């Protein structure tokens, strides 16, 4: 196999990795906010359910969670798996897992806000929703950005866990080529791909941080 063919195959895998990355963020970032609300809810039952959710998803391997989401429906309900469900299972697994982490990051940001901001908004007549989305949340975003960057970088590398469901993203393909051709080269190329991907992520996040540095 020529180097260019290998590069081509890995690139197509990269596109799939990118797909997992983007979709996971699209779903887990809003879901994480909802989970954070549940975690901070005054309703004790809801709060405890969410605590268990976060505890389990943070306390077990993501790879294992992917296997459970993928194979679980088959063993539990005899559902036919495979086909498009493979990709769906990956997105569900990743989103649920990352939402748990993001929830705690949101919570740390929200709880760090001075109570005076809520009080000022309340006295000015903002209702709870207006207060949160106009006053609190924009400031929370700025506060949690470094922590979110950490998670996002981890997510780039975590997409490789999809190999456990034999989904043809970059790492799975690299492994296949390496095994078939008994060469180490695909791993080197994959490493470079991941690194460049993360470099782009880090630079982008830094830009956003800079953009938000107009206030303290």
């Amino acid at each position, binding site marked *: 196999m020529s180097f260019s063919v290998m590069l081509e195959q890995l690139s197509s895998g990269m596109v799939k990795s990118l797909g997992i990355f983007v979709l996971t963020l699209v779903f887990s970032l809003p879901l994480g906010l909802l989970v954070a609300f549940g975690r901070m809810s005054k309703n004790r039952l809801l709060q405890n359910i969410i605590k268990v959710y976060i505890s389990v998803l943070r306390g077990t391997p993501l790879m294992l969670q992917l296997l459970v989401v993928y194979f679980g429906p088959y063993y539990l309900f005899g559902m036919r798996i495979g086909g498009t469900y493979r990709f769906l299972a990956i997105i569900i697994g990743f989103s649920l897992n990352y939402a748990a982490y993001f929830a705690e990051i949101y919570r740390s940001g929200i709880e760090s806000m001075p109570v*005076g901001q809520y009080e*000022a*908004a309340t*006295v*000015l007549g*903002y209702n709870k929703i207006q207060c949160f989305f106009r006053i609190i949340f924009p400031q929370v975003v700025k506060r949690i950005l470094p922590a979110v960057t950490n998670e996002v970088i981890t997510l780039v590398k975590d997409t490789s866990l999809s190999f456990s469901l034999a989904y043809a993203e970059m790492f799975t393909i690299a492994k296949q080529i390496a095994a078939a051709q008994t060469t180490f080269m695909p791993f080197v190329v994959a490493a470079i791909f991941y690194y460049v991907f993360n470099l782009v992520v880090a630079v982008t996040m830094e830009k956003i941080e800079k953009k938000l540095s*107009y*206030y303290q």
Partner: protein
Amino acid sequence: MNLLEMNHIRKHFDGLEVIQDISLSVGEGEILSIIGPSGSGKSTMLRCATMLEKIDAGEVLYMGERAACVTEDGRQIYPKGEEAKQIRSYFGLVFQNFNLFPHYSVMKNITDAPITIQKRKRDEVYEEARSLLKKMGLEDKENAYPCQLSGGQCQRVAIARALALNPRILFFDEPTSALDPELTGEVLKVIRSLADLQIAMVIVTHEMAFARSISDRVIFMDKGVVALEGKPDAVFDSDNGRIREFLGKIAER
């Protein structure tokens, strides 16, 4: 009818009675100062009046409309939704530490609530905000952010922000306590200039000379009760032991 009426208010924190059966009222355009030692319940009284703190007994009325009340069996009743919004529109509050929104420019701090909450026209609100800023001596700061301003400037923005909602009564919770003496002067000057706006003001302050000269009426609070109330001269020159002791301590500084 009184603008604000607080009847038989009680408030306790963890069994400590911070406010013990206080009643007070404020008329249209009246300027009332509340003085007294730390921990006497002055700020708590303001926080009860502005619905930031729930009362344990009594009732709060604005223009005869009920803002808070506690029933015989101890249930706290607070208005909700539109009713609450209506009542909140009667008053404004200026905090000790300003509580400006750091992510908003000075202009946006002042105009956001009138535009998004009161649904007023943007152009009209901006025009009004500019004239308020002028009154505050901050006409060149509308695009600045709070972190670029001095404490005195921040507090003046906070006053403009409260005034932009056209309240009938404005509460000041130790507006100069976070400022050094030089900046205190500029804020007091601005508050003084509001006296002719015909807005009622309730000012919790440690600036005795200021309280004496600006107020129509002064309340001296001590240990959760109103110890003395009356015209400024009557209160400050009273030979009541507690206020003499308090004023003596302040004069020693």
